[in-house]
């Protein structure tokens, strides 16, 4: 194996550790604050992931990206389905780019 190969093995170990940590905690039923915290983690993580990836290269691009995100949000809120919302936002953004708006 190459030296980089051994580094990749070490990278895999430090990736697996955080992933496994929560999964290997003793199985306990959570109540009260712990339950509320676990329920809110996905909300916070998805919001942070969306916010991190949305800003555009410049003002025009950022505006169209936000508009596409708003379209995705509206479609998902109405249909309660991920696919149509994602495809609507993506199609709108790519169409604007193709027309030279972003």
């Amino acid at each position, binding site marked *: 194996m190459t030296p980089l190969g051994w580094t990749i093995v070490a990278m895999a170990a430090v990736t697996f550790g955080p992933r496994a940590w929560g999964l290997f905690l003793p199985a306990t039923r959570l109540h009260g604050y712990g339950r509320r915290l676990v329920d809110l983690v996905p909300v916070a993580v998805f919001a*942070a992931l969306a916010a991190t990836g949305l800003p555009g290269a410049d003002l025009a691009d950022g505006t169209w990206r936000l508009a596409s995100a708003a379209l995705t949000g509206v479609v998902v809120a109405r249909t309660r389905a*991920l696919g149509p919302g994602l495809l609507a936002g993506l199609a709108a953004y790519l169409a604007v780019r193709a027309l030279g708006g972003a």
Partner: protein
Amino acid sequence: MVPLWVGVVPFGAAYAVSARAAGISPLDAQLMSLLVFAGGSQFAAVGLVAAGAGPWTLVTTTLLINLRHVLYGVVVGASTPLSGARRWLAAHLLTDESFGMHVAHGRGRPAFLIGAGLSLFLVWNLATLAGALLAHALPDPTAIGLDIVFPLAFLALLVPLLRDRATVAVAGVAALGSWTLGHWLEPSLALMSAAAAAAACGAALRRPTSEPS
């Protein structure tokens, strides 16, 4: 899962193309996709290799970027029974995207979690292979606008979870906090810090009577 594959394929291929440009062999690029299976840290590793960084820098950066997966493991572990080999496999396959699909559609269903993870693992690795083989013929996905797939996907996963004022407030604080901290911290660290703080404050302020069943 199909809409997420639309985003995963070009980025898996782009990762392989950039790895080759950085002087990483196709074998090592594929090894990273198989063993690490974490897009953000794989792209970061390519950049570090290209900049001449040493092994410790690569390993430390990978750890920092993937620390957020601790939060995912806690949520999945609390909602879904996993044991034996399934738990080991689920840990290797736990990514932003598989966690999102699990929360949206697969709580309490170990087979769904592993199936979603395996499908993404297969697509990511096939895209890496294709990228390594077709390195000179593929466009940069960011240059053609496909990088928007991931934030839109996470927004689409978020919207159904916004059930009351508390969840809207937590989402707002996490989004603003992540964006603001991202100016000073490594993006993944900013994301994890903002998300953990927003969820912790939201859980403290939320009245127990408003807990979902």
